[in-house]
């Protein structure tokens, strides 16, 4: 720490100097400027909420809470409901996390704990590259590779083996909730791997050495000591991935089928909030129509907010049980 190494004659401690002195020395200015930078993020968030709130006034008054439970989205008859879009957003995000979390954390454990450092660094380069690929590229990948594979192989196979479940019933078009979830999973895995790997690598060496010293195997020390120690950070990586999955627009709209349906089947085409806003915003002529789209934006914001809050809560609860880095 700077305080313990400072030279005794460098002047009185900061708190005791007069305001003017501090101003002259630049401390106050630096504090003010950095405070403004920090405050601007809060300001932008508040402005965003305000804008979404004001921009959707007409729709909020007309539909009220009905907006959340109405399944119809009919711009011609001016009937608007958010339910199918909320459903589609949540389902695709859930599917993507169900695939991405085990894969991503598994890969991160390998890279951080088990792989030789050179291999780990080389692979990390590719993972960072994947994280930087624009989403429209993932959409194209989805349309040209994932969709035909799903239609011709994966969906018929799932139908044959697990077809008795409502999850895997109905006609297989190749597009739909499942495909969108898979494409999203491919997109968010790099985030989970990258952040989790950093977190795992920052676990103090003592922890591993203590576990090994107590006679555990390499895997036992990793799974029982290192991963629990890093779980707050790993959780953070999952919620980063969730946020991306909820808001992803381009890749989702290319493979989800863009039909506002609520169906238990993952093969069914659906729609997500971000996709419908992107699709319909340009041609939304009526005031009510436009405002209903803005209200969907508000709903997406709320959804992200709620899930983020839940995430914080979860982290708070788990870190009380001991351990945990504060990287989240």
């Amino acid at each position, binding site marked *: 720490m700077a305080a313990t190494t400072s030279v005794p004659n460098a002047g009185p401690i900061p708190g005791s100097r007069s305001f003017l002195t501090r101003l002259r020395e630049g401390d106050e200015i630096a504090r003010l400027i950095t405070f403004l930078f920090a405050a601007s993020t809060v300001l932008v968030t508040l402005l965003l909420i305000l804008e979404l709130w004001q921009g959707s006034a007409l729709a909020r008054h007309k539909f009220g809470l009905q907006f959340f439970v109405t399944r*119809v*989205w*009919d*711009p*011609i*008859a001016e*009937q608007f409901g958010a339910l199918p879009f909320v459903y589609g957003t949540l389902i695709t995000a859930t599917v993507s996390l169900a695939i991405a979390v085990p894969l991503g954390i598994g890969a991160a454990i390998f890279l951080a704990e088990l792989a030789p450092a050179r291999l780990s660094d080389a692979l990390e380069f590719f993972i960072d590259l994947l994280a930087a690929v624009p989403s429209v590229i993932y959409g194209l990948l989805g*349309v040209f590779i994932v*969709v*035909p594979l799903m*239609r011709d192989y994966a969906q018929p196979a799932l139908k044959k083996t697990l077809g008795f479940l409502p999850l895997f019933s109905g*006609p297989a*078009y*190749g*597009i739909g909730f499942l495909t969108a979830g898979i494409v999203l999973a491919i997109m968010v895995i790099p985030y989970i791997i990258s952040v989790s790997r950093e977190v795992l690598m920052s676990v103090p060496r003592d922890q591993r050495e203590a576990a090994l010293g107590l006679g555990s195997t390499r895997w036992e020390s990793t799974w029982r000591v290192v991963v629990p120690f890093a779980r707050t950070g790993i959780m953070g990586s999952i919620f980063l991935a969730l946020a991306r999955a909820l808001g992803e627009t381009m890749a989702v*709209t*290319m493979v989800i*089928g*863009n*039909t506002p349906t609520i169906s238990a089947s993952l093969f069914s*085409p659906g*729609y997500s909030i971000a*996709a419908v806003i*992107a*699709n*319909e*915003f*340009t*041609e*939304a*002529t009526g005031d009510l129509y436009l405002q209903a789209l803005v209200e969907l934006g508000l709903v997406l914001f709320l959804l992200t907010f709620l899930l983020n809050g839940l995430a914080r809560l979860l982290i708070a609860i788990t870190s009380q049980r001991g351990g945990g880095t504060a990287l989240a």
Partner: protein
Amino acid sequence: MKRIAGLSVVTLALTMVAAVLVHAALSINGAGATFPYPVYSKWFDEYQKKHPDVQINYQSIGSGGGIKQVTEGTVDFGASDGPMNDEQLKTFQDKHGFGILHFPTVLGAVVPTYNIPGVTAALNFTPEALAGIFLGKITKWSDPAIAGANKGINLPDADIVVVHRSDGSGTTYVWTDYLSKVSDEWKNKVGKGASPNWPVGLGGKGNEGVTGQIKNAPNSIGYVELIYAVSNNIPYGSVKNSSGSFIKADLESVSAAAAAAAKTMPDDFRVSITNPASNKAYPIASFTWLLIPEKFSDAAKRDAIKGFLTWMLADGQNYAEQLSYAKLPKEVVAKEEKALAKVQ
């Protein structure tokens, strides 16, 4: 050293003056429809070559955006694939104290396209079949409503996969406008608009999204712009018109639809020409419009826009066909030239 520095300062100053002079050209801004964008950008480009003092900038942000921006006064003119409705006209009038005029520019058509494994022949579609398919009432290709118009073609007993546009678009507006005219059930249940509540089907983003999904899904049907189908060699079907003939969309049959409408063209040019009464006309076609405010506070701008419109109605029309848009019929051109006087 000093001299070099001085020289470069002078050069820089001269360059800047030159840049300012170039930019001193009158700049006119428009926004709207994406469907006529290729011909519009060609026009604005050609017009600027002839009139270097006028620069027209156009953003193809969609018809809805065009109507909105011209109403808010953030652009000088708008463009739309569907005419503004009475409510929108009133909003404009209330806000500005004067009206807004529609000027048809070119014509386009929307065609049914499909992917049925084993079928290579061009299919014939009756209005009943198209409405039935898009309402979700006709679900098999072997349905008599489709097979009856396609004798000799072996249509499979397979489920039809319907594909439509997911983004709001003028193409969808024309398609649903046609279906509303030929089917009462469509009119009452769905109606016409840029993004209706589709009874069945999958949504694809843009013409390319629809085509992509049709290519991907066997036994599918969708609709795309004629220009898109022609320039990408996508096969499309013929549609039965109001006189009972099956017509394949091309420049000639689209122009015939316009000519049929020309006789009954209303003074404000807000007309739908789907399903016209003409035996040569392709029934799913539409004008696309420029939206010009009646009054301009800036006389130079007004004259420039009028100058462009005059050129567009004459020489400009010759650029349309090479880009697969149908030209305006002579009667409509004459009528528009008269209407130009209303712009003050």
